[in-house]
């Protein structure tokens, strides 16, 4: 479903600030695959998602979805296939627009945006059903501006906006990091449901190792722009946080050696 081949991305190339964010990433995800990605700051996790979403262009390599090479497509043209939820609850919604207007913008994902009415009675009913499925009571507040919602509510709405049109790929960029543990749990549960229901292929970046182990069927550990370790479903089931920390430690040692030797 999603195949990355030799993806490289360097920021500020040729300057003193040069940073090689991705150093040849190869990744192959089957349809319905759900990968969690962990790694320290600057490991290239977010860059990886940005490259897949198209908000950053790659220097080298290719991004292929369902057999179609989308490496050169701009972000807005990839949106029909790729949806994302950002870390910042404010980033995924439009604060001055009402809940139903936000949903109407999301509903047109990948389609033509013409001069038909955005929020029709039919759509309003559809939105109401979708919102009711979140169980947050948002269905009674559809005309309220999104700026009025709490972070957790917004993130749940972002998730709904990302998934209810059934894109093929869902990118989650630390989407629970800004929430308190209780709301993070709730958003994770909604995430799990949405992914299962729509059979989405998903990538989830997180700093929470426990979440990374619990969610998904595969785990990637990134460091300095490379994928250092991959755990498949069985290895993941057997692993715990201390295993991951150990792997991290090894990674650091390994790289320190390499730096010394090079």
């Amino acid at each position: 479903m999603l195949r990355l081949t030799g993806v490289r991305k360097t920021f500020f190339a040729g300057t003193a600030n040069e940073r090689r964010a991705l150093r040849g990433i190869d990744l192959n995800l089957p349809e319905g695959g759900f990968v969690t990605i962990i790694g320290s700051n600057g490991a290239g996790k977010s860059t990886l998602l940005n490259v897949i979403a198209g908000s950053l262009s790659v220097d080298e390599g290719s991004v292929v979805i369902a057999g179609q090479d989308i490496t050169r497509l701009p972000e807005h043209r990839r949106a029909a296939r790729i949806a994302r939820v950002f870390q910042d609850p404010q980033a995924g919604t439009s604060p001055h627009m009402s809940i139903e207007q936000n949903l109407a913008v999301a509903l047109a994902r990948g389609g033509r945006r013409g001069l038909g009415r955005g929020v029709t009675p039919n759509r309003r009913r559809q939105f109401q059903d979708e919102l009711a499925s979140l169980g947050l009571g948002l269905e009674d507040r559809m005309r309220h501006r999104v700026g009025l919602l709490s972070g957790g509510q917004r993130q749940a709405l972002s998730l709904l906006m990302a998934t209810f049109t059934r894109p093929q790929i869902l990118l989650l960029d630390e989407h629970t990091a800004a929430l308190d543990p209780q709301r993070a749990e709730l958003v994770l549960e909604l995430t799990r449901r949405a992914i299962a229901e729509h059979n989405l292929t998903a990538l989830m970046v997180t700093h929470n190792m426990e979440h990374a182990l619990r969610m998904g069927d595969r785990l990637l550990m990134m460091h300095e722009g490379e994928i250092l370790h991959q755990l498949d479903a069985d290895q993941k089931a057997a692993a715990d946080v201390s295993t991951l920390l150990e792997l991290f430690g090894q990674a650091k040692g390994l790289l320190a050696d390499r730096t010394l030797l090079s």
Partner: protein
Amino acid sequence: MLSAIDQGLIYALLALGVFLTFRILNFADLTVDASFTTGAGTAATLISHGYSPWLGVVAGLAAGSLGGLVTALLHTKFKIDPLLASILTMLGLYSVNLRIMGRANTPLLNVETVFTPLRDHNLIGTWTSVAILAAIALAVKFAIDWFLSTNFGLAVMATGDNPAMASSLGVSTDVTKIVTLMLANGLVGLAGAVMAQYQGFADIGGGTGLILVGLASVILGNAVLGTRFMVLATLGVVVGSVLYRLVIYFALLWDFVKAQDMKLISAVLVVAALVLSQSKALRGAFSRLSPWRADKDAPEPMTVVPNRFSPLAETDAVSFSPDAADGLEDGTARETDRRTRGASSPPAAPVQRSAAAVTSSAGHLEGRAAEAAGTAAKPAGEPAPGAGQAVDDTEEAI
């Protein structure tokens, strides 16, 4: 006085254009000063060469929208900052306008204009002309309301409100910006074409300072009618434009004030509108007076997308609480609200900072550019980041 209202209604078309760019698209578009003259000059030139005045109106609209197109392309294709892109267009259009007109002033005396039928019956500056122009301004207002309720219009609003989100949902923000800037400057050109025929001439300097007039109308109108409902926000823009002309009219009745003081009065009026729209007392008064203001919702925290007027744009997110127009709550709600926020609310520093940043970057350009940009940073009502937090607390958290 009625002719002041006439003018206010014609300039309302311009103000609606300014509303689209500054408020909806969050784009500090200063093209207006020149595209107004482009519209006026195109119409006047065509009419003085014997073409139909209605053709002049349509051509004025088209010419204005081309001005908007240039700014939009400079910004979207060459990634030039909105403020700078529009100032460049404004500068260049000045010469283009002179080319179109062939001289600095094109009179429209003794030629047929769209106002000739009214003029022949001495109906200019009467309730008849006011009614006709009001109908036109309201028709445009409703057209904008409709536009903003369409799928495309919602995408435009999303582009202005949260461009990163819009893009991630498949909105081509380049297309929404180009279309909206063309539409807005088309309205400005239309205002120019109509105004030239109303006053009987087009002048190369006719558009100077009009961006401020447009902004003043938007600010005044939104302070009166609020921005919660789009239909009221756009109506407010029309009302604001008329109010603006009336204030100027009454100021000029005073013997001490001479016609050459117009620009000074305009500047003072804009400052007053900005200051008053931030004043809690005034907002409280409006909320008591206005029947539309009774509001069930809690006061809303506003998060503003990265401030596009700031040179630090892409990285510098600014958040602050309700802008002037959103002081919708009634007195008691405001009280509770203030208590919720507590005394710890930080001052509205982010806004000042972004405005200051713009001022410093644009300071060497024209004063009015800087001022317009400052305005565009939206007059913050109340202090900020803490406010959103407080509201979140009072919200039924999930």
